[in-house]
């Protein structure tokens, strides 16, 4: 318990300076590292002849889509041709077309669902030129979109910013420096980092043992920092080479939490900016830590996160009654699929974090979690707004925030406003689209899977847990998370194609609609707050927001959850 609380305390301490740094980067304010990075960035702009004009939401969205499309093409070629290219010391074959399709969509959309196993499926060159490359670019794309969205909502400027500039600034000023420093810490603790082939040794009993090696640490750190989640090795961060000690476990936890958390702070500060300029242009006000608007959003996210964490921890700690009957003590909790060095507490924390912050890396096997312990990650991917990965979570939470002011506005019969802008029909339609597409993808594809032979063949655990496996796969795909109930035999045409589509639509429909909302709000005139305006910066709003999120989730997903994890829990404990 204590170590969970302290890990979260480190997160809160780390997120405050990072939020400030990120805010300065987003708004082109001065930071301590400018003398170095200004030179690097200006060099890049010059060499690449990047046009640094501000963009409308349409131009911004088009630039993002076009860039992602070109990257997909480049990555696809590398995967298909990896056997013929260099840096392939382990002699890996080229990848099959539907698996390549799934993999490339998976990494470009920041999902990192893996239907291959890193040890046998990818050459080192593919790990670098496809996986690591996309871990940087998909994360940068997400944060760029989020920054543009915040600029729209904050309404300080006339445009959403410049996509190419955002991509470069995020990569050079945040992603690469952090990855270099903490990558070295991972190596120090035991993550391999080599271009040499896999290692074989002779054991003291005269047998042989293989170790899959490679540039593991380089991938490992950006995997977490970019909330990507796809492991170098099949079993991801459970393996000692990806996550050797408790220190690496905490580095990985903080790395995946820090940027989504910092996004909320950045948003809060940006909204504050406008008021500050209006009211007290002459008076110098100290920069707030959170900003009032950011604080309510951060609080609402934290409440949902902590509720989930508690359920997951208690459920895992309670253990598995079946094993208890078989004669294995359960005082330490359910250890099937977990590592001794992490135990139940760090495993439950990692599980909740990886799905709340939509990373998708795992330090224990989610398929073997207890039913309710496994329901928490499932639910948080279904919500997809509890911090969330790469800026997208914040945007989703703001969708719920707009929905909340809309519903409250209906109750009192006033035109709803958010951040001084009227919320009208056009915005609400787009919000509804974003909120509906996600459950539609999850439940629609799950229904398809359980009603077709090709889908049913993937299920490997009998009974209610089988449905959980299917739900988990599509929730993970649609929320761009990437963790899995790994028992599912998902490297088939059916699963590769359907989950590929879920990832694609889950990512791009939402991002385009959200940028459109930002563009639409930006174009509106600011209305003065009156006595009848609902305040969105107080405790009541945070609580309302939490309730709206839970009610929305319950109405949409409860029937499916009841048939999966809840039914499994009841049969396990009460039959």
């Amino acid at each position, binding site marked *: 318990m*204590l*170590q969970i609380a302290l890990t979260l305390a480190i997160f809160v301490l780390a997120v405050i300076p990072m939020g400030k740094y990120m805010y300065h980067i987003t708004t082109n304010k001065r930071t301590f590292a400018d003398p170095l990075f200004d030179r690097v960035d200006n060099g*890049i702009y010059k060499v690449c002849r990047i046009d640094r004009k501000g963009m409308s939401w349409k131009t911004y969205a088009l*630039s993002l889509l076009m860039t992602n499309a*070109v990257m997909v093409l480049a990555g696809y070629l590398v995967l298909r041709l990896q056997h013929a290219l260099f840096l392939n010391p382990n002699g890996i074959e080229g990848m099959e077309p539907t698996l390549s399709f799934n993999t490339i969509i998976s990494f470009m959309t920041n999902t990192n669902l893996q239907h291959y196993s890193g*040890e*046998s499926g990818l050459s080192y060159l593919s790990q*670098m*030129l496809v996986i690591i*490359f996309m871990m940087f*670019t998909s994360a940068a794309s997400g944060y760029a979109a989020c920054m543009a969205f915040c600029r729209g909502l904050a309404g300080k400027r006339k445009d959403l910013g410049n996509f190419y500039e955002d991509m470069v600034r995020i*990569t050079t000023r945040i992603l690469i420096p952090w990855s*270099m420093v903490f990558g*070295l810490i991972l*190596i*120090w603790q035991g993550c391999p*980092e*080599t*271009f040499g082939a896999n*290692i074989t*040794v*002779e054991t*003291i009993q005269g*047998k*042989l*043992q*293989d*170790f899959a*090696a490679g540039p593991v640490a*380089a991938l490992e750190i950006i995997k977490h920092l970019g909330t990507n989640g796809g492991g170098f090795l*099949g*079993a991801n961060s459970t393996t*000692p*080479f990806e996550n050797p*000690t408790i220190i690496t476990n905490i580095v990985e936890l903080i790395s995946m939490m820090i940027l989504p958390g910092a996004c909320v702070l950045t948003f809060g500060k940006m909204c504050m900016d406008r008021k500050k300029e209006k009211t007290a242009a002459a008076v110098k006000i100290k920069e707030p830590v959170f900003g009032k608007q950011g604080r309510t959003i951060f609080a609402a996210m934290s409440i949902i996160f902590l509720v989930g964490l508690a359920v997951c921890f208690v459920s895992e700690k309670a253990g598995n009654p*079946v*094993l208890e009957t078989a*004669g*294995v*003590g359960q005082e*330490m909790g359910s*250890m*099937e*699929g*977990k*590592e*001794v*060095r*992490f135990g139940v507490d760090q495993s439950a924390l990692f599980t909740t974090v990886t799905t709340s912050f939509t990373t998708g890396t795992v330090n*224990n096997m989610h*398929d*073997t979690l207890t039913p309710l312990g496994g329901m928490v990650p499932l639910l948080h991917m279904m919500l997809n707004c509890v911090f969330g990965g790469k800026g997208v979570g914040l945007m989703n939470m703001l969708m719920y925030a707009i929905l909340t002011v809309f519903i409250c506005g209906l109750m009192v019969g006033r035109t709803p406003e958010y951040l001084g802008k009227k919320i009208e029909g056009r915005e609400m339609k787009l919000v509804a689209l974003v909120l509906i597409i996600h459950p539609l993808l999850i439940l629609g594809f799950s229904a398809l899977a359980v009603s077709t032979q090709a889908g049913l063949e993937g299920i490997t*655990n*009998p*009974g*209610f*847990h089988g449905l959980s496996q299917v739900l988990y796969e599509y929730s993970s795909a649609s929320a761009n998370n990437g963790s899995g109930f*790994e*028992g599912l035999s998902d490297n088939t045409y059916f699963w590769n194609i359907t989950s590929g589509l879920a990832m694609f639509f889950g990512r791009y429909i939402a991002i385009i609609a959200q940028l459109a909302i930002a563009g639409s709000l930006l174009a509106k005139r600011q209305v003065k707050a009156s006595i009848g305006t609902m305040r969105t910066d107080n405790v009541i709003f945070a609580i309302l927001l939490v309730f709206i999120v839970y009610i929305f989730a319950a109405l949409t997903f409860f029937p499916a959850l009841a048939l999966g994890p809840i039914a499994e829990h009841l049969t*396990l404990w009460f039959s």
Partner: protein
Amino acid sequence: MKSFLKYVKSAVILTVLMLIVCGLAYPAALTGLGQAIFPHQANGSLVTAEGEKTTDSDKAVGSAIVGQDFSDDARYFQGRVSGVNYNVYTEGDKADGSYTGPGSGGSNLAPSNEELKKRVDDAVEQFLEKHPDVKEGEIPADLLTASGSGMDPDITPQSAKIQIPAISEATGLSERELEDIVNRNTAGKTLGIFGHERVNVLKCNLEVAKALGEI
């Protein structure tokens, strides 16, 4: 059309730039630094039979941070159940195709799965046969459950101590000696707070083998 081409051009430029910076320069730089500063760890934390660090796979007998399979020899400490047999194999296994290359992973059996119950039931029965002093229900949870990675190097101190009487009988080493070996290879919590107490199985077994004169 003209503006479409402009988008494509900018996208291609950005892609090439990112490929070079993030896909090639960054991993190359980190590999260079890692190999220079932490050569032992960057090459898999290999250890020799004496338990010394090495980067030479010909001298190594395993990795300090990866578990190893000892299940066919009652004289050694047993690690956790592995879904991939710790990637340990013989030339024969490779020839007949029962070992196809390194992998990782757990059992992926749901808590409600009958197969899990059967596996654990069998394991408990075998364990009690080997360790007649142990009562049912006293077996620690980590020992007979599969690890997530299939390569967990550790067991809990309880799981190590419960094996001592049987190992003492099989090897002739005194229980006291074995307890010392376990204590020497037990790592505590980091800063007294983070993580869990754990015993490195491979390191224990290297000391057992040395005491028996096997190496």
